[in-house]
């Protein structure tokens, strides 16, 4: 690896150094060169850096040690082991890898719509090296990817850590493939004035249908139980009768409930009539069962089952909405079905900030800044101080890059947050919202989002404070593996 030249020079410059340490170094370099697996084992120590831990603390001239993909020590007094590979970072800043709470980076498909089971992780192009590189260059090491459809329910969002050429690490990189159920509310351009109302109502109907679906199953199960009980009773009766008259054979050949296949076919309505005839024939054979009607199993609906997980509080609901009226509709739906809601995009959310605060609904601001010129639609509600207004009202605010217009777009998450600070957002809280707090929002705070012992070694070395003018990412690590180095970033320079 990059150490090889220094190894060679170490061999030739033995004078003045103890041969033991040289030997160790040579051995270490050899191990690194031989196996990338061992590279994970060898600890790395970033030294003398200003560490912004992600949860509000700053450690001046601190050291971070990581090994085997996880952070093993953080602090001022930390001593790295002899074997450790040292990275001198005096004057530089170390932060947790930034987390983009809403980004369509490398997202390659849009689901057909109204498919709660579609997964964003299946649409994420893990081979989109340039796009992943672009995010890493800005210090973003993890993103929440929505499963977006033009309207209604889109599917399941994912939390993915970024690494170019992931290979075997892929499983490790997907922190969640069912992070939230995504939906979109509001009209697209060119639709009639009632389209927005219809879109909200459609979402409500989906949840209502899911509840009805559950009810249908509960009814069915109840009926089935009843039915089976009766069957059992009858079998018992029969057995008793048989005891009394043991000459009769064939006690309860048909005591079981109808087979699964038979029940399934019952659901096909057009065929039901014909089958009923068959059934009647069958039942005539066994006249005693004639008055016992077996309940029909409701059709399986995987989409409804996902929605039920939202209603049961096992899955969060993330809705992209861009007009205050739409946002209010969504709040009402979420309240009605007891869904844990996250709003994203959220143009105009500041206009309903008090209501959002009251219902404790977090907001991910990810709409692009609006132009000065008047734009019709949601854009006219965009204002740069929306984050400040929402926070002031007591709403939890997060940031995302939102929908990227082209594969060459390079989202500037840190600058987006810096701009919010310039428009009144609390400077002390700013970094947290794209590290520790974002991890909490996505339910991965025990994995990423802080420079803390035991968490994954997703770290970024910056030339300056991440919000400072001209600050650039020098190196980035994901799971302890170096995923970005400015010196070897060909696209990043002009040559």
């Amino acid at each position, binding site marked *: 690896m990059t150490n090889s030249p220094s190894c060679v020079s170490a061999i030739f410059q033995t004078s003045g150094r103890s041969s033991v340490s040289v030997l160790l170094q040579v051995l270490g370099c050899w191990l690194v060169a031989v196996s990338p697996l061992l590279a994970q084992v060898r600890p790395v120590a970033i030294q003398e850096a200003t560490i912004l831990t992600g949860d509000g603390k700053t450690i001046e001239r601190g050291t971070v040690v990581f090994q085997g993909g996880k952070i093993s020590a953080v602090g001022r007094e930390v001593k790295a082991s002899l074997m450790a590979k040292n990275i001198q970072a005096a004057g530089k800043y170390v932060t947790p890898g930034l987390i983009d709470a809403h980004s369509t980076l490398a997202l390659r498909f849009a689901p057909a719509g109204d498919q709660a089971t579609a997964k964003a992780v299946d649409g994420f192009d893990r081979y989109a090296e340039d796009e992943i590189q672009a995010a890493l260059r800005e210090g973003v090491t993890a993103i929440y990817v929505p499963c977006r459809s033009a309207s209604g329910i889109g599917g399941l969002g994912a939390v993915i850590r970024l690494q170019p050429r992931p290979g075997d690490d892929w499983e490790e990189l997907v922190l969640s493939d069912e992070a939230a159920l995504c939906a979109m509310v509001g009209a697209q351009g060119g639709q009639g004035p009632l389209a927005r109302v219809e879109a909200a109502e459609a979402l409500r109907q989906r949840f209502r249908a899911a509840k009805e679906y559950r009810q249908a199953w509960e009814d069915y199960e109840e009926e089935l139980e009843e039915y089976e009980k009766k069957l059992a009773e009858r079998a018992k009766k029969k057995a008793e009768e048989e005891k009394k008259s043991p000459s009769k054979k064939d006690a309860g050949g048909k005591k079981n409930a109808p087979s699964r296949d038979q029940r399934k076919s019952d659901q096909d309505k057009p065929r039901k009539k014909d089958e009923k005839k068959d059934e009647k024939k069958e039942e005539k054979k066994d006249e005693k069962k004639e008055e016992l009607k077996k309940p029909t199993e409701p059709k399986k609906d995987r989409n409804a089952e996902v929605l039920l997980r939202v209603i049961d509080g096992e899955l969060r609901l993330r809705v992209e909405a861009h007009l205050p009226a739409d946002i209010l509709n969504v709040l009402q739906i979420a309240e009605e079905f007891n869904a844990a809601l996250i709003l994203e995009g959220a143009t105009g959310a500041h206009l309903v900030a008090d209501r959002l605060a009251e219902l404790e609904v977090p907001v991910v601001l990810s709409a692009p800044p609006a132009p000065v010129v008047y734009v019709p639609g949601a854009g006219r509600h965009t204002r740069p*101080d929306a984050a400040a207004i929402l926070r002031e009202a007591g709403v939890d605010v997060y940031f995302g890059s939102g929908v990227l217009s082209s594969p060459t777009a*390079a989202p*500037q998450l840190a600058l987006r947050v810096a701009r919010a600070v*310039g428009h009144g957002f609390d400077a002390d809280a700013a970094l947290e919202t794209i590290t520790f707090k974002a991890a909490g929002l996505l339910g991965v705070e025990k994995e990423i989002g802080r420079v803390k012992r035991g968490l994954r070694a997703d770290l970024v070395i910056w030339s300056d404070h991440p919000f400072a003018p001209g600050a650039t990412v020098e190196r980035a690590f994901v799971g302890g593996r170096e995923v970005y180095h400015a010196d070897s970033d060909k696209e990043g320079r*002009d040559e």
Partner: protein
Amino acid sequence: MNRSLVGHSKVLVSLLAAALLPAVTVAQTSAGRVVHAAAYVGADGKIHTGGVVVVENGVITQVGGDVPSDTRVDAYPGGVVCPGLIDCAASLGAYGNLSERQNAIQPHVNARDAFDRFSRQLRAALAAGVTTFALAPDDQNLVGGRIAVCQTAGPDGKPRILTEAGPLKLSIAPESFKQDREPTSRAGAIGLLRETIEAARRDASEDNPLAAFAAGRLTGVFTTPSGADVLAALRLKADYGLRLVLVHTRDARLVAEQTAGQVTGVIVGPLDLAAGRREALAAGVFERHAVPVALAGGLPARPADSLRIAAAVAARAGLTPEAARRAITTVPADLLGMGDRIGKIQKGHQADLVVFSGDPLDLRSRVLAVYVAGQRVYVPDLKAPEGDQP
């Protein structure tokens, strides 16, 4: 309740201040005033300590040094005084279509005629620190017309035209090729342009801007989206001795070397918060080849702080901080031919100033006040909208 009361009182105070300010300031004009902050952005683009800027009769008379006595002092502790920002590729307040559609050569068009000084866009730009902008014909015609240099506010707070005799706007962008008039192709466009320049060289009349351009007396701001367009423009310059400012971003890496020394400068951008790497790198590339770079704000089709966003993005992609600050102040003033009047905090220059709470390049900094010709024309309102309101 308490909070809203405080809010109201703040609004009241700012309203009062706004109402009183003009009266006070007009009275003080001749006596001069001092803008006193912690630091200022020098003509070199660097931040210098000692942010004392003394203004008399709308002109800067002293930079740095001690605060003179007997003068009104506007104090901004911790602030940084910056020249008023200049967007050299804008169409703020443009009323009606900015380009003719029947003829690709429109030297007689003057953008000043499309200037709507009552547009709300101007106030939004002013609030973001943009004091001056080039109202430029768009890229639909080979020769689009004359650029007017306008101000989002004059010393009386009302928008004004600084000069209507700005550079000539040219374009060989694909949108200048039409199906229903010449040119219909790129080669045709360049051929027609050559013909036009040669005809103009034979016409010695003083009032023909094309003649002045063809003779190398008037700068042409030339939109050249591709690297090939840049090379074509440079050939025209070599053949006719033109004075050119190029509007180019995409292929900077490929043409920066050839451009060096051939043009007055290059306008790069606009760049937004999701600008591609190639676009973000462009300004830095030109800087390294010693080509003066201005960044475009693209107002009003971009957010009001678009110039600062562009500068911040470019600075993260290799443009030095000094050059980034110059790219939204000094250089655009130079490229518009107004460099001896605006764009610098220097003795003798018009006192167009923006006081930021920190480095203007740092997006965390806020606008604290805006001055035009020494008059404070903007202090932030508590809840001012960013864009047009219906």
